[in-house]
């Protein structure tokens, strides 16, 4: 006998309020929190997926193939162009809208010979 009680509850040990709250409140809340974390954490770290019709908030990017896979003559041109660009980097050039090249006069644009256009 832990306490001096008699009757049907004589074998039960007394539980404090803190223990009761811990079992009936703390554990369920902990389970809820664990599931919420599992549900929302992957979405919070992921980039939003593109949906047609939404604005595009990112800076323009221009991807080029890796120079290591190009044939020799093409690679030579790429390397020379990179070197030229590095030389230009030190100088201060006027801020131009994206897509324009200070080196290239507007009249020289005649390299495009064909292609296509698509909209969605």
């Amino acid at each position: 006998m832990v306490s001096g009680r008699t009757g049907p509850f004589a074998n039960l040990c007394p539980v404090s309020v803190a223990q009761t709250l811990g079992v009936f409140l703390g554990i369920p809340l902990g389970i809820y929190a664990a599931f919420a974390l599992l549900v929302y954490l992957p979405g919070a770290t992921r980039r939003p997926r593109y949906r047609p019709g939404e604005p595009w908030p990112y800076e323009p990017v221009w991807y080029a193939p890796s120079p290591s896979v190009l044939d020799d003559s093409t690679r030579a041109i790429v390397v020379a162009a990179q070197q030229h660009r590095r030389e230009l980097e030190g100088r201060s050039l006027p801020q131009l809208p994206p897509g324009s090249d200070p080196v290239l006069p507007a009249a020289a644009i005649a390299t495009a010979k064909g292609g296509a256009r698509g909209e969605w």
Partner: protein
Amino acid sequence: MSGDADRVLVSERYAHPRPPSPFRPKQLARIDEALSMSSAETGLYFSLYVGALDVPTRGHAERLHAELGELAPQAVVLAVSPGQRVVEIVTGAESALRVPDRSCSLAALSMTAAFGGGDLTGGIVAGLRMLSDQAGHSS
């Protein structure tokens, strides 16, 4: 309220440590592989622009192509503007012979089909694959 007039707000330009890329690393790897493989197989120079295009978009895409300078004759520029829902394919003197306009239209069609479903990476990879298949191997 009048006391707020002499309050000076000092804000500094917040420089993002690394501007966020529109693509996840895995998607970037797929795009990089598609660009490099199609360029290596065909001997053409495939490059991909993703971002806003000045109106008229065709003119901007052709300017991008011209910026490639000595590479322009063998270059194929894919310019994708997800915000404007436009894709432009530009070919040069040599690449236009290898990839006729009909094939470019077909590639653009397959790209826009994927883009319309929200799959940017898939559309880009599919378009590059179709263009490089049409160009064939370099002699």
